């Protein structure tokens, strides 16, 4: 194991170095508690739990605002509105053909956190993580990388284009993604409501059967593959993926410390090699690579970067790359 030295010029510099080291340690603990954080995020997104028994929806003012993850607003416990459902509701209404409000909220979430939302805050992401913990044979998705592009098609066609273009005589478009694809509505809305409300149970028909089939399919795939819905179908993941490159939350790989052991890319269940691209569209910032890195070469950063610091990092990385090539 290589020993890391921190060179300091004064006592105040020493304090700064200490704080930096403590910060790095706390980030590592943060990633270790991912499951707990996901659980709390799901609870906060669905805080009105007694509504499950009442068979009623929360209808307070908070529902004017979107939650960051994929969470159906027809879930009895839902705290806020679903961003994908809300977007379709606005563009599908007769009054508007584009939703500035929802797009603005999504850009804000994307720029602040990128796909960290998928890894830590999305209830359906956590559901799939739990499914994948069921002890069975697991399959790699490395050979299915082409399927990743489907989610961009889902975003462009089912979420944006169809609700705008296909409308009835009153000018109202259907939320096509919610209606025909989204498994979250069945999981969080239809199943709890049909359990407590016999009138809803009586109205379920072919559409419910179709969507229930999708949910079962996602569950089976989720047990065998890691996060199939996030990788291949989720339009929200597709939107946030576009922001990983410019997000304030960023990963850094210190090439000077990296020994090119490949542990990070072998560990990554999203099939990302973080040493090649730190802002890969598929990286959900789960921190698994940070946990396994033997030299602590991968770090996480949030906020605007100081251009001078970036210049210093670039020089260090160039020296590291030359050193690795020589080895």
């Amino acid at each position, binding site marked *: 194991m290589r020993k890391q030295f921190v060179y300091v010029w004064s006592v105040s510099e020493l304090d700064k170095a200490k704080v930096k080291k403590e910060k790095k340690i706390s980030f590592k603990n943060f990633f270790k508690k991912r499951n707990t954080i996901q659980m709390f995020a799901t609870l906060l997104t669905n805080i009105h739990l007694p509504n499950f028994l009442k068979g009623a*929806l*929360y*209808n307070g003012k908070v*529902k*004017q605002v*979107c939650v960051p993850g994929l969470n*159906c*607003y*027809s879930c009895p416990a*839902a705290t*806020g*509105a*679903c961003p994908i*459902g*809300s977007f379709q*509701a*606005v563009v599908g*209404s007769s*009054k*508007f053909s584009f*939703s*500035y*409000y*929802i*797009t*603005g*909220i999504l*850009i*804000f979430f*994307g*720029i602040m956190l990128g796909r960290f939302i998928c890894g830590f805050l999305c209830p359906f992401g956590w559901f799939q993580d739990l499914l994948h913990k069921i002890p069975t044979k697991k399959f790699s998705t490395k050979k299915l990388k082409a399927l990743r592009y489907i989610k961009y098609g889902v975003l462009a066609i089912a979420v944006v284009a169809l609700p705008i273009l296909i409308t009835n005589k009153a000018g109202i478009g*259907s*939320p096509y993604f*919610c*209606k025909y694809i*989204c498994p979250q*509505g*069945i999981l969080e*809305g*239809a199943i709890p*409501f049909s359990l407590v409300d016999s009138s*809803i149970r009586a*109205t*379920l*028909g072919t*559409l*419910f059967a*179709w*969507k*229930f089939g999708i949910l079962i399919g996602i569950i089976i795939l989720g047990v065998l593959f890691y996060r199939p819905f996030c990788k291949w179908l989720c339009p929200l993941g597709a939107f946030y993926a576009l*922001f990983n*490159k*410019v997000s*304030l939350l960023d990963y850094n790989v210190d090439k000077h410390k990296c020994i090119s052991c490949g542990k990070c890319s072998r560990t990554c269940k999203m099939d990302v090699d973080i040493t090649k691209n730190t802002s890969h569209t598929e990286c959900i910032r789960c921190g698994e690579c940070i946990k396994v890195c033997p030299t602590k070469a991968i770090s996480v950063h949030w906020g*605007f*970067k100081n*251009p001078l610091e*970036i*210049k210093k990092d*670039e020089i260090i990385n160039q020296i590291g790359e030359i050193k690795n090539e020589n080895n």
Partner: protein
Amino acid sequence: MKVIGKYSTQVKFAAQLMLIVTATAFVCLGAYRGEVETVFAKAIRLCLECVGIG
């Protein structure tokens, strides 16, 4: 290479700032147009399409 590196850093910083400003402007414009009411009206009622009733 150095010029490209410096340029991309500046572009990223500019893009971040621009997107934050755009997001804020979009939210304000959307609220001004009355989109919030549409979202709220949809969110407080059972979405029949979402739950598979149609």
